[in-house]
């Protein structure tokens, strides 16, 4: 056991070994905080994409567990009804595709129809099981001759909302261009005539009132909420 004189430096040395903890103080520096937290989200997005399993299906539920349509919450960022003219509506497809152009709802409805009861999870913390019908995004991309090795889809909406989607999630067998909820054509407030239904993604990525789809490797914008600081990948 040591003498009093030699013990003080010993304490000091052991205390100094804790200095790495002070690195956490960087989060308290206003100039650094933003980029550190952005880095944290980016890292977590990267990790989520790594453990995403392409063939792993989101749980589907029997009709008895589906919430009735009037208990399926509505979240619009702007208006519930942007006044879409259904007669003249088309989906504009651009970017890395063989056959760009205007696609009608009939062309999308002609693709094999998928019906699913899946859980919608809102970033706010609530969740609800709903009933959805539509065409696989994967099938539609084949129809348009899209390069499925591209990184992203970029989607614009008639209420000026916009979203992006990584290709692996877009090709998931449950990822839909959704035109029905509860076996009925989409209502205006739920995104008529066409919305995204992605049971492997958080709620804000389920864009409504789709107007265009762009296949691309590089995103100029990530999404309405993403560009304000929310995760751009947010897989479930």
């Amino acid at each position: 056991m040591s003498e009093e004189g030699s013990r003080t430096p010993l304490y000091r040395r052991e205390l100094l070994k804790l200095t790495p903890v002070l690195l956490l103080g960087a989060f308290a520096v206003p100039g650094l905080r933003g980029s550190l937290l952005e880095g944290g989200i980016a890292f977590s997005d990267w990790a989520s994409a790594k453990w995403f399993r392409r063939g792993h299906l989101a749980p589907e539920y029997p009709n008895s567990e589906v919430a009735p349509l009037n208990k399926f919450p509505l979240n619009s960022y702007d208006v519930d009804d942007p006044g879409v003219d259904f007669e003249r509506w088309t989906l504009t497809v651009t970017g890395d595709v063989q056959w760009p152009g205007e696609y009608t709802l009939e062309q999308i409805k002609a693709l094999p129809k998928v019906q699913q009861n899946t859980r919608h999870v809102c970033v706010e913390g609530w969740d609800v099981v709903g009933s959805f019908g539509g065409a696989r995004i994967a099938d539609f991309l084949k129809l348009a001759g899209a390069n499925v090795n591209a990184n992203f889809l970029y989607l614009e909406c008639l209420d000026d909302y916009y979203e992006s989607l990584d290709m692996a999630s877009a090709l998931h067998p449950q990822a839909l261009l959704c035109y029905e909820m509860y076996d009925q054509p989409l209502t205006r407030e739920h995104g008529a005539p066409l919305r995204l239904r992605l049971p492997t993604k958080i709620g804000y990525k389920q864009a409504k009132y789709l107007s265009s789809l762009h296949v691309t490797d590089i995103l100029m914008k990530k999404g309405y909420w993403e560009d304000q600081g929310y995760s751009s990948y947010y897989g479930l």
Partner: protein
Amino acid sequence: MRDTDQLNANGAGGVREPVGEPIDASHIVFEHPLVVRLCHWVNSVALLVMAGSGLQIFRAFPSFGPKIPQNNLLIVPKALTLGGWLGGALQWHITFAWIYLASGLTYVGYQIFSGNYRQLMLTQPDFLGIWPMIRHYFFFGNKPSVSGAYNPLQKLAYLSVLLLGAGSALTGMVLYNPVQFSALAWVAGGFHRARFWHFLILCGMGLFLVGHLVMVILHGWNNFASMLTGWKRNPEHVQ
């Protein structure tokens, strides 16, 4: 210097020093290895960030029921929260989840591979020692003699909070990625319930923190400093 095992071998009432020698600073024991101290402090910061940002996230939907109709359980005061808004709180929560996880896994890994976990393990006599310790702390009974670095009730508290820590990480994984971790979600009783467990675990950790801080204050500077330097002067179990 790590002579706790040898000291323990003497038993709780063992007389180590010649009678009459004052018990002073010459009794000094290395109680907390560096990795444990590092993890303790990193985890303390991470836990406060997780709790504050978690409460801000909870403010976005302060209920465990359905969205329609929404019955708010309680509105958390803004002063207890971190992040300012939902998006900001999520940035803190998700970033520090990794720091929290890293410090937790480093701690558990170190404890197992170094054998230091024995400090914490409840032995058979410990089980009998829990009640006398409760009687001492809560009903002013006599203080039972202590033979290791931690008394039985302390071990129980630290083991419990470790379990809560593991539970918070596992339920958090369910809330973050319920599809990829669907098996884990099933164990938790589904996505919806996992959110309730996650909150309940926070309450448990809050209780632990209150008890922990009270004990740290009661036991004074020497005990507190040992979590900084690793060394403890005149620990109870050596006297």
